[in-house]
């Protein structure tokens, strides 16, 4: 566990010592704010619960995208700069390396969600929404962000450069976002499988409406675990090459 924390702290240091972390954070918070103002609040009158639901819709997109950008450097940059040898020549287990790096992105996502809190706070003050709706929505965004971070970690593990990493993880994420379309055009039981894999359409909308569905929580956690396991396996396979 100590090794995992060490790696996570180092990664967070890399984000705070360089402009990259701040730039990604600021860009997606700005985007989220613009979407919130232009589309969630909008010009026409809306129920405050709908405004909050729309906020979580945009927050989902921005957090997932930010998680992919945060995680693209995790392993790919170490490989590009030759510093991977520091981790490989230390007695750290591969799961500690992957876990530590994943944890650093989770910390950044948490910061991003906390900063974005002024938007639902405005809805709470000026409208009529419950704190539980806000909390459940944020739980959903956090789980989706964590899933994207795990996909990003995997992309960064398999790719040789950060650009390729973000393309690979972006492609996987888009495929999972669009899986519901495949679910509509294919026959059962494959259709059901595609539909089940849809990370927004099938599993996020209940969070958006303020409802926790255990199946959705398990789905996101399973995807996280699966991609982190894959990342660890890839790292193990490459460690000795």
């Amino acid at each position, binding site marked *: 566990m*100590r090794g995992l924390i060490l790696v996570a702290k180092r990664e967070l240091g890399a984000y705070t010592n360089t402009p990259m972390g701040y730039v990604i954070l600021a860009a997606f918070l700005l985007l989220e704010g613009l979407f919130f103002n232009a589309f969630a609040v909008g010009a026409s009158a809306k129920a405050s619960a709908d405004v909050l639901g729309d906020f979580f819709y945009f927050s989902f997109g921005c957090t997932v995208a930010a998680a992919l950008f945060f995680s693209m450097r995790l392993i790919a940059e170490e490989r590009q*700069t030759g510093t991977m040898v520091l981790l490989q*020549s*230390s*007695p750290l287990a591969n799961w500690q390396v992957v876990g530590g790096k994943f944890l650093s992105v989770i910390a950044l996502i948490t910061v991003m969600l906390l900063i974005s809190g002024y938007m639902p706070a405005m809805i709470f003050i000026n409208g009529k929404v419950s704190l539980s709706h806000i909390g459940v929505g944020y739980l959903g965004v956090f789980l989706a962000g964590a899933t994207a971070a795990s996909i990003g970690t995997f992309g960064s593990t398999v790719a040789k450069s950060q650009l390729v990493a973000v393309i690979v993880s972006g492609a996987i994420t888009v495929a999972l976002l669009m899986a519901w379309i495949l679910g509509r055009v294919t026959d059962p039981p494959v259709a059901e499988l595609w539909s089940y894999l849809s990370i927004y359409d099938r599993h996020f909308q209940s969070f958006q409406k303020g409802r926790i569905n255990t199946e959705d929580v398990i789905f996101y956690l399973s995807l996280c675990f699966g991609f982190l396991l894959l990342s660890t396996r890839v790292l193990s396979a490459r460690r000795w090459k």
Partner: protein
Amino acid sequence: MIEVQNLTRYYGRHAAVAGLSFSIQDREIVGFLGLNGAGKSTTLKILAGLLLPSSGTVHVDGVDVVQAPDSLRAQIGYLPEDAPLYLDMRVRDFVSYVGQLKGMSSAEVDARIDGVLARCGLAERAEQVISELSHGYRKRVGIAQAIIHQPKLVILDEPISGLDPLQIREIREVIVGLKADCTVLISSHILGEISQTCDRILVLKDGKMAAQGTEEELRGSMGEGGQLELSIRGTQEAVVAALKAYPHTSAVTRVRTEDIEGGTIVHCQVALAADEREGLIAAIVGAGLGLRRMDEADSELEAIFVNLTQGKG
């Protein structure tokens, strides 16, 4: 300390290391010498627990690198040719981080880090960001990260490449100082450096051991006849052919020509397997060439290196 038996490592179908065997004693400084592609870095990476051998066994301090790589990694300090550094970190933070990665507690790192930084000449740069350091200081940081955890074995791959003469001298002092605490393996292309720093030299050629021993022992391995400097009148082709045809010649090196009025003088060095100079003179004269000068050459490491890695040629 290190026992290597029949070590072989393939990259695809190419054997970078082929059947290498050697042993290294505790607190020895051993230099790996060889041309590019001789298998030096591959061997060092296997010893550092970064590469799996295709076959053969490697034991470091009794531990098999394949069976127990994690416990081994905590005992080894490794500096690759390009020092692996997080450029955004400060020197002290970076060295401290690597120490903890190697399994040291914060208290252990705190107790040791000032001594390590001072030893590597980094005490005054401890709070500087690594990206602001010169190449020489970055190498020092690389060495500091390799020794912070008091390893039993320190592996330095080309530690002085790209350094100026003053930096080389300073790094050399750091490396020689390591001998008091640990075994040190160095690979280098700078032959004089190997000669001045190492107790023993392993010469690799095509992934195999071409020779090993002290510089004196390697000199002896060149043959009883030693190294001769010759100046011979004739064409380069004729001179080299005549020298190579002589049965006691083990190598012809450093061939260069000098144009003179009415012909060419070929200057070269010849290593003889036996002290048969008279026969060599007779062979040169018999080939219709004019022997202008024959002298004993200084058997510098460079000559030994060329002879061992290029063979008769």
